[in-house]
């Protein structure tokens, strides 16, 4: 299966109103070339799932500034004042989720699980409207799995089968999102021949990846 696509081919699958997972943590590990393309194409009313809304000029934050996002499901918006402004003005819906819960919800979405049980958020506003269960005498919140239409990832090295190797802290949510979307597109900082990433060093198996676009920054 030929997975290598041009950016136009790959981004053509992203339509108004879709739910996107976007890898990265304050922009580190975020596929910025895809963000550029989404801005250029002007797709709107997106629901974005990611760790945070980055900065106004970096990461997911740029889509917020350009008013392409109607809903953000993230753990943190503090580094992007524009997200807070749009939220207070009623222009965007923001769902704040504890970071570890968000990671597990995405993992559950990709792992065929019906959700996860976590103590995080008990006794806080996070528990509002959620089911609680007691297991082995301890109380947990039930947090549901999350999936997306498309996951946008970034790899430092990607081979032609889609196997991904990440650099330092750029890994973060990328490997989890690779499992949790109907269409998975990775931006390759460096595209290498199949086999050039040793199987022991593959961090995301290529079977999760549908499309590869070369030329990430």
């Amino acid at each position, binding site marked *: 299966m030929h997975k290598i696509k041009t950016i136009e081919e790959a981004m053509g699958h992203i339509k108004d109103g879709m739910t996107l997972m976007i890898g990265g943590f304050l922009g580190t590990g975020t596929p910025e070339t895809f963000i550029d393309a989404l801005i250029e194409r002007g797709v709107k009313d997106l629901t974005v799932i990611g760790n945070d809304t980055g900065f106004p000029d970096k990461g997911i934050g740029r889509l917020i500034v350009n008013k392409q996002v109607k809903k953000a499901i993230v753990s943190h918006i503090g580094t992007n004042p524009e997200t807070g402004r749009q939220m207070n003005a009623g222009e965007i819906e923001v769902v704040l989720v504890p970071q570890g819960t968000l990671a597990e919800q995405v993992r559950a979405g990709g792992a065929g699980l019906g959700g996860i049980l976590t*103590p995080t958020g008990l006794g806080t506003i996070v528990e509002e409207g959620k089911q609680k269960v007691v297991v082995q005498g301890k109380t947990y919140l039930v947090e549901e799995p999350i999936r997306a239409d498309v996951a946008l990832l970034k790899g430092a090295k990607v081979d032609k089968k889609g196997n991904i190797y990440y650099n330092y802290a750029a890994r973060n949510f990328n490997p989890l999102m690779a499992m949790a979307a109907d269409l998975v597109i990775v931006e390759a900082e460096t595209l290498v021949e199949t086999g050039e990433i040793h199987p022991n060093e593959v961090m995301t198996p290529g079977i999760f990846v549908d499309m590869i676009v070369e030329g990430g920054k």
Partner: protein
Amino acid sequence: MDNIREIIAKRVAKELKDGDVVNLGIGLPTLVANYIPEGVDIILQSENGFVGMGPAPEAGKEEKDLVNAGGLNVTLMPGAAFFDSATSFAIIRGGHVAATVLGALQVDQKGNLANWMIPGKLVPGMGGAMDLVSGAKKVIVAMEHTAKGKAKILKECTLPLTAVAEVDLIITEMGVMAVKPEGLVLLEINPAYTVEDIKAATEAELIIADPLKDMTV
């Protein structure tokens, strides 16, 4: 003010034991790393996905994607390891972090903590704080005793909570307080202050330990 922050950071550093895996929050808690006693080897966890975090690099020696949870460039200690966000929070939630040090907007005598939002004013999101506070074995609040003269150590928090009854120790420039079944106990006092000074700056009921030790840094 720098002196106050230094006193707090130095005293917190004495709580950390050789071999501890520790997560330090942004701001004052980050300073703790500068005062780890000689011969004590702690492993810093960074929730964006690694253990073995070192200090900031020299100018010009920054490595791409090697950043802490605040997005700032850092270095690595020998033995460092990277992982995805689910593993990062398995470490945090699963009891593999010996201590977390964070700041507070409010903390109360039952060990409740509020440090993630001020409704209508400041809504940055909880990031990893809720998971850290519910998962770390020991939760240390490191902060200035009051905010512009207003008490932050209360009978009961009024802001939205980060977690319920998880705080173990509160360290300020005035002293060291422990949350115990009988209430909030002042264990140590900075000799620059009197017990009356501390009581006046604290809304919570303080139980004074007998003997009350001097806080040394």
